[in-house]
C-alpha cells in the first residue's frame, strides 16, 4: 500500500490544485489475496495490488465523480478536471449540503501485522490443515481463504482529513461427502489470528457427516433453529433494501412510515456500531465522517435508518457517518451490525422444538419480492436437519422458503447467548454479529432433489 506521508502529500497537493469549488478524494490502497480450493485441491490462487481514488467535486451545487486507480499527480489532476467537467454539465442539486467537515475518528484496533505479512505458502499450509481434517472423515473440501491489507483515506476541502490502516481475514469451508452431501461453515476476523482453521474445518465436516442420507419432508410452515450464517444473509439483504435513509426516502424500506412502530418482536434489538470490537471496527465512512452508533430496531420498534451527509441534510438530522462510495451512490448503509443476544444455548433452542428444521445456511436469498413487507425467498443449504421431540433426528433434503422478514423477526421465540460474527456479503470489511435463533412457523414453500 502507498506510504502514509506520501499519500497525505499527494492528497494535499491535489486538493489545492483542484479546479472545482469543493473537492473530496477517497483512496483505498492495498492488497487482496485469496486462495481458493475445491475437491481438496487449490485451484485458484490470486493476489492483487491496487489503488482506487474516487474524486468527487462540486461546482456550486453541481457535482461530478470520477474514479481512477492511478496515483500520480498528473493522473489525479486529470481525474479532477474530468469530474469538474461532469459537474459543470450536470443539473444543480438544491439539496447538496457541501462536503462534510468531520472530527478525527478515535483510534481503533483495525490492523493485524501477521495478516498483512501472510504468504501464499502460509495460506496453502492452512488449506492443507483443513483438507487433512476432511480426509479423515472421507470428505473433500471446497472454500476460500481471503486476506486483505489496506490504507483508507478521505480528505476534502472542508477540512476533513482521515486515514486508517486495516486488515481482515475470511475463511469459508464447504465439505462434501462421496454422495455429494454438504456441510458448510465460515470464520471472519480482523486478522488471521482470529481464524480457527482447524475448528472451522471440523465444524463443516461434522455438518457434512450429519447430513448424510437426507430424507424429504413435506414443506409447510415449521419451526426452525437457524444459525448465524443464515441470519446474517437475510440481514445483509435488509441492509440493501431497508436500513439506509435513501431506501426510506424512496419508500422501499419496510421501516418507511413505521418509525416508532413495532415492526419486529420485542426481543429484537439491532444496532450498527462501527467501534464495537466484537465485530470489525471501521472508524469512518466514504465521506470521512466518523461513524456513530445507530439503533435501527429497539425492542422490535423501528427507530432510525443510517445517514450520509445528503440524506441527513434532507431529514434535518445528524449525519451518522454511513456514506457509501460516491461512484455508485447506493446511499448510506450500516456495515457493523449487532443483534442483542438471548440467554439460551443452541441445544436448549433445539429442545424447545417438537418438530422443526435446523438450518445451518441459506442459499441464493432474494429480498426483492416485496421490499415493503420485507418478503424474501431462498433455499436452505449445506446442513439442514429435522428436529423431532427436541433433538436433531436426521438430515433432510433442502427446501425453498418464502416469508416476510418482518414476520421472521417477530416470531423469534428465543436466541442463544453466544453470538458469531459473520463476514457480510457487501464488501471486504463489514459484518453481522448475531446469535442463533428459534423462529416459529417459518414458511417453507418448495423442495428440491437433494
Amino acid at each position, binding site marked *: 500500500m502507498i506510504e502514509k506521508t506520501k499519500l497525505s502529500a499527494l492528497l494535499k497537493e491535489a486538493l489545492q490544485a483542484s479546479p472545482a469549488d469543493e473537492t473530496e478524494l477517497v483512496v483505498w490502497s492495498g492488497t487482496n489475496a485469496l486462495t481458493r480450493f*475445491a475437491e481438496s485441491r487449490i485451484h485458484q490462487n*490470486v*493476489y492483487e495490488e491496487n489503488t482506487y481514488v474516487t474524486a468527487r467535486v462540486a461546482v456550486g451545487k453541481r457535482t461530478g465523480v470520477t474514479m481512477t486507480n492511478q496515483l500520480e499527480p498528473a493522473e489525479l489532476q486529470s481525474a479532477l478536471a474530468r469530474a469538474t467537467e461532469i459537474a459543470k*454539465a450536470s443539473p444543480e442539486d438544491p439539496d447538496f449540503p457541501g462536503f462534510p467537515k468531520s472530527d478525527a475518528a478515535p483510534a481503533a484496533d483495525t490492523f493485524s501485522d501477521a495478516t498483512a505479512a501472510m504468504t*501464499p505458502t502460509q495460506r496453502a499450509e492452512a488449506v492443507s490443515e483443513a*483438507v487433512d481434517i476432511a480426509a479423515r472423515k472421507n470428505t473433500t473440501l471446497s472454500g*476460500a481463504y481471503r486476506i486483505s491489507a489496506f490504507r483508507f483515506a478521505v480528505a476534502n476541502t472542508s477540512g476533513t482529513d482521515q486515514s486508517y490502516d486495516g486488515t481482515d481475514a475470511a475463511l469459508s469451508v464447504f465439505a462434501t461427502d462421496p454422495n455429494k452431501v454438504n456441510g458448510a461453515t465460515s470464520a471472519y476476523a480482523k486478522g488471521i489470528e482470529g481464524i480457527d482453521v482447524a475448528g472451522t474445518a471440523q465444524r463443516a465436516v461434522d455438518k457434512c457427516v450429519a447430513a448424510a442420507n437426507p430424507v424429504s419432508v413435506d414443506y409447510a410452515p415449521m419451526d426452525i433453529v437457524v444459525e448465524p450464517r443464515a441470519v446474517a444473509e437475510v440481514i445483509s439483504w435488509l441492509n440493501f433494501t431497508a436500513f439506509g435513509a435513501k431506501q426510506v426516502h424512496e419508500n422501499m424500506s419496510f421501516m418507511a412510515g413505521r418509525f416508532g412502530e413495532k415492526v419486529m418482536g420485542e426481543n429484537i434489538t439491532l444496532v450498527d456500531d462501527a467501534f464495537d470490537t466484537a465485530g470489525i471496527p471501521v472508524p469512518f465512512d466514504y465521506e470521512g465522517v466518523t461513524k456513530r452508533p445507530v439503533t435501527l430496531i429497539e425492542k422490535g420498534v423501528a427507530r432510525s435508518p443510517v445517514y450520509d451527509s445528503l440524506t441527513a441534510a434532507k431529514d434535518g438530522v445528524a449525519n451518522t457517518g454511513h456514506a457509501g462510495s460516491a461512484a*455508485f451512490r447506493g446511499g448510506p448503509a450500516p456495515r457493523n451490525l449487532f443483534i442483542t443476544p438471548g440467554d439460551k444455548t443452541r441445544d436448549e433452542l433445539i429442545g424447545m422444538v417438537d418438530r422443526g428444521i435446523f438450518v445451518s445456511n441459506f442459499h441464493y436469498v432474494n429480498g426483492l419480492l416485496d421490499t415493503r413487507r420485507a418478503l424474501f425467498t431462498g433455499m436452505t443449504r449445506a446442513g439442514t436437519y429435522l428436529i423431532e421431540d427436541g433433538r436433531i433426528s436426521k438430515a433432510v433434503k433442502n427446501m425453498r422458503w418464502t416469508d416476510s422478514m418482518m414476520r421472521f423477526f417477530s416470531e423469534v421465540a428465543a436466541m442463544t447467548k453466544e453470538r458469531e460474527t459473520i463476514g457480510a456479503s457487501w464488501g471486504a470489511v463489514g459484518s453481522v454479529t448475531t446469535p442463533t435463533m428459534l423462529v416459529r412457523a417459518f414458511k417453507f414453500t418448495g423442495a428440491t432433489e437433494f
Partner: protein
Amino acid sequence: MKDLLKQAMDELKRQGVDYADARRVIGTSEILVMKNGKLETASVMESRGFGIRVLAGGAWGFSSSSLQTAEAVREVAAQALAIAKASATVGGGGVVLDERDAVIDRYESGFDEDPFEVQLSDKLSILAECCAGMSRTDGVKLSTASMMSFKNDKLFVSTDGSEIEQFIVETGGGIAATAMNDAGERQTRSYPASFRGDYATRGFEFTRSLDLAGHADQVGAEALELLNADECPAVHTDLIIGGTQLALQVHESCGHPIELDRVFGTEASYAGTSFLTTDKLGSFQYGSDIVNIVADATCEGGLGSFGYDDEGVPAQRTEIVTEGLFTGYLSSRESAPKIGQKSSGTMRADGWNRIPLVRMTNINLLPGAGTLEDLIADTDDGIFVDSNKSWSIDQRRINFQFGCEIAWEIKNGKRTRMLKNPVYTGITPEFWGGCDAICGEEEWHIFGIPSCGKGEPGQTAHVGHGVAPARFKNVEVGGKR
C-alpha cells in the same frame, strides 16, 4: 507495456513453467442515473493494470498490479510463480490445458457512435425527458432513468506465442417508474428490461435505438395501473413468459448449469455446482423437442460477444441443447480436455486484476414461429408474465422461483386483466420439458445483462440472451405469499 509483458513470458518460459499468460486492460465505464429529474449518479471510472497467470507444476498462480513499470512486471511475474508453487502443495496440481496454436490478431467491436464522445448534456437531456414522461402519471412517485457505457482496451500475450489486442465498446440503458399509494404499497414498471435496462456490444446508437423517452409515458401509466391491479392468483396454468423475463430464466436455469468449471466443483463452496453432470452429456432430455439453445459469442452486437476469450481462444458458437437433448457445455482450456474436448472459448475475466473464469457468452434460445399475439390467441387459459423482479435458484440449479413485475390473465385466446405480484416456481428439466411453443424471429431479441456475478473475489460479466416469448405447460404460479 507489450514488450515488458512479452519479456515476462520469455523469462517464465526460461524458468520452466508449464504455461503463462499476461493481460493488460484499460477499462473505462460511465454510470448516469437520474431520479425524478435529479442527477443521482454521474461518474466515470477508469482502471488500468495488468495480471500474470502462471501454470507451474500443474497448478495455478495469479498476481496483478495497477503499476505499469518494468519493476512491477518482474515482481508480479515472480509473485505469480511463487503462488503457483504454493498451490501445487495442496492437491498436487494436475492441470492440463488443451493444445492451441499461437494467435496474433486484433479485434474491434463495431460501433457507429462512441458513447464516450457523446456530450454529457445530450445524455442528461434524454434522461430528464424520461423522468418527465414517467412523472406525468399521477401516482408515480419515483421515476428512474439510467445509462451505462463501457469500453475495454485489452492486450493478451502468452507463452504459446499469442499476441491479441481487443477493443470492445458496450452501451445501454433503461427506465423504471414506481407508483405508490397512501397505504404504502409500491409497484414498479420498467422498460426495456428491469434492473437498468438492456445492453449491447454496440455504440451509443444502441442506446438511442431504445427510445427510452418514447416509452416513458406508457411505463408510468402501467406502474399506476399495476398498483390498482388484481393480485395474481395461485394456480397451475399455462405460462407465457415475455422476452425480458425469459432471458433471466435462460440465464439461471441453463446458462449457469452449463459452466463446465462449475460442473467440476470449482464454485461449489460459493455459487454451487450443477445438475448437468458430465454423464448427462448427449443423453439427458433437458427440455421438450422444440427447445434449442446455443452459446454464441459471435452474434453481432450481443453483450456476450467478443473476438477472443481471455485465454486467447477464438469466439465460438456451441450447441447446448439440441431438440431438447443436452449436448454441450461452456468450457475452458483446462476443463474441456477432461471431457475429451477443446475449449469452447468462454473464459473471461472482469478486468486486469481477476483471473478468467468460464462465463456465459450469448446463451440463446433459438426462435420458433409466430408472434406473441399468435401465441396468446392459441392459449385458452393461462397467464402471461414479463420483466423480472426477483430471482432465486438452488445450488444445483434445479428448484427456481422468479417474481415478475407484471402479468396478464389469458382467457379464450385473449389478454384480459392485468395482475400484480406474479411469482412462478418450478424444477428446471420439468419446466423446460413443458415448453410447447416459442415465438418466431420477429419477436426474437438478444437482451444484454451487464451484471452476471461469479467467483471469489467476485467478478461481474456482461452476457447476452437471445429469446422470444415462449409458453410452458402446467406451471405453478402464485401471488405474494
